[in-house]
């Protein structure tokens, strides 16, 4: 697809421009010009211009941008007034970008690791997942936890581990939980490459652009379901919609030893500390990304029910496990597990009450859990 071309020549190439927009204009006819201005200045328009844009919805974003977003996230909600929209550059854009060839190499390596993280199997990855298993569209798509926000909202305090995290530390979190593994060391070639890829995708976004204004960031929480999420109903949806690829027993599908469809539970799937083991995260992932090629086709209720079913299955232990399931749940209840079924009794068994770490021959990479604190230091 030809990338949108309203951008002025200050970006890489007008034909292949990463772009972003905030709420800007009122009339579609003038939107393009104003958008280009806003892009150049990275500016919000004054409030009165936005107020005028109340109806029809989304009229403040130019038609071409809306078309592009509909292509990237079919059926997803369109941006609301005041939201920050960023369309990350592609790998084709990288080839044309004015960057040092050695940096391009680094970013390409990061992209390759992101798509095929299984090349780190047994070293950093101990399950069947790739980064791109959850971050669809190479980490670029809205409503699929696009990864560019991490490059601009960090460093920041992160409740999950209670201290200030850098981009590399955030990536390390994915390895520790979602990949049930041990991250590449901070500053290592692979970690630098992955971080560089994230930063490339954020090209042009202001540093510390407020995360809560970002369109399609993370897996945006779905409206509460009409009925209480139910695993039995979820299983029915699973059999009808998911089992063809992920198998009836959730083990995914391989061909000649290569992972084709990732497992959703069991030893080769994400562990109990992964963000997506939270029900609201999985429900949103499912709604906005599954079945593959058919995003936003399940109802909210089906998505919540599926999350309830899938996340009430067993998976490798949370690396934060203390040896006592009740204690571990209590320790991380407020910041995490109140949203998961970890430590909850389902069908007469307490989920996560085991010491199974899957294929990973250890519980946790200790160095990842090193806290950071500046309160005792003086300038």
């Amino acid at each position, binding site marked *: 697809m030809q*990338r949108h071309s309203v951008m002025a020549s200050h970006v890489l190439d007008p034909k292949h421009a990463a772009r972003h927009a905030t709420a800007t204009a009122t009339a579609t006819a003038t939107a393009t010009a104003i958008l280009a201005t806003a892009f150049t200045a990275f500016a919000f328009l004054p409030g009165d211009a936005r107020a005028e844009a109340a109806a029809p919805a989304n009229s403040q974003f130019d038609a071409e941008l809306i078309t592009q977003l509909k292509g990237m996230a079919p059926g997803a909600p369109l941006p609301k007034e005041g939201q920050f929209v960023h369309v990350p550059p*592609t790998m084709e854009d990288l080839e044309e970008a004015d960057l040092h060839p050695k940096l391009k190499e680094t970013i390409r390596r990061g992209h390759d690791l992101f798509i095929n993280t299984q090349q780190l199997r047994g070293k950093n990855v101990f399950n069947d997942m790739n980064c791109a298993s959850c971050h669809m*569209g190479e980490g670029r798509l809205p409503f699929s936890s696009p990864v560019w926000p991490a490059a601009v909202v960090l460093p920041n305090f992160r409740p999950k581990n209670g201290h200030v995290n850098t981009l590399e530390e955030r990536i390390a979190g994915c390895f520790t939980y979602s990949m049930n593994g041990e991250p590449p060391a901070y500053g290592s070639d692979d970690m630098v490459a992955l971080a560089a890829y994230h930063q490339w995708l954020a090209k042009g976004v202001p540093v510390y652009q407020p995360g809560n204004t970002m369109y399609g960031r993370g897996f945006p929480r779905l409206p509460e379901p009409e009925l209480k999420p*139910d*695993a039995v109903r979820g299983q029915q949806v699973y059999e009808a919609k998911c089992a063809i*690829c992920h198998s*009836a027993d959730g083990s995914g599908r391989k*061909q*000649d030893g290569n992972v084709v469809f990732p497992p959703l539970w069991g030893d080769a799937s994400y562990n109990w500390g992964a963000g997506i083991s939270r029900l609201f995260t999985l429900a949103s992932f499912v709604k906005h990304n599954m079945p593959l*090629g058919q995003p936003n086709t399940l109802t909210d209720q089906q998505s919540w029910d599926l999350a309830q079913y899938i996340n009430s299955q067993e998976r490798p232990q949370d690396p934060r496990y203390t040896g006592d399931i009740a204690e571990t749940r209590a320790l991380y209840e407020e910041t995490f597990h109140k949203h998961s079924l970890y430590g909850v009794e389902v069908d007469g068994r307490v989920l996560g009450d085991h010491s199974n770490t899957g294929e990973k021959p250890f519980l946790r990479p200790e160095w990842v859990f090193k806290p950071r604190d500046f309160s005792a230091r003086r300038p």
Partner: protein
Amino acid sequence: MRTKRNKLPYAAALAWLSAVLMPLGGMGAANAGNIEAGKAAAAVCVACHQVDGGGMAPAGAEPWPALAGLDAGYIIKQLNDFKSGARKNVSMQPFAQMLNDQQVTDVAAYYASLPLPAREAPEADRELLAHGEKLALQGDWDRYIVRCVACHGPGNAGVGSDFPRLAGQLPEYLRRQLQAYRDGSRSNDPQDLMGSIARRMSDRDIEAVSLWLGSQPVQK
């Protein structure tokens, strides 16, 4: 926090259903089929699909796809769908009707056992091929065209009975199938998975990806 549920009746019903439906869907390997008997029954197939199972694309006419090396379960499903009309094709329907259930299974086993004959790569514009390669291996997420390998597996060599091998198939055949999925005249794919993506593809996309896939060697 405590949730109680009883999923046993569902599990039992499901097990029963799969046991009953599996042979119909061709998903199980319960009946492997007899290759020799399949070869005999395939006498009606060779005029079009060729003795080596490599298929043929006569100029300006309906292409006869390569069957050699396709997954047996996939072939069984297609033959049964031709019989039932779930997949409509006026040429294939009468031939499929000639085969009884056992012959369907045997013919499928026979073709699955054949190696796909080597063929000269189709002539194509380099830029078009590059576009096809991109769609097959990376997809185009700006238009939610999922890459072929995501479902058809490494090398587009196929995954099980649901996602057929594409590598080395006749480009003319692939093109027609994608067009048919796009316009709805073929809809026997599981859960509209192919249709959903085909409907987002342009003529150029279809042309490019068909040519590229057809030019690929079969890796197994």
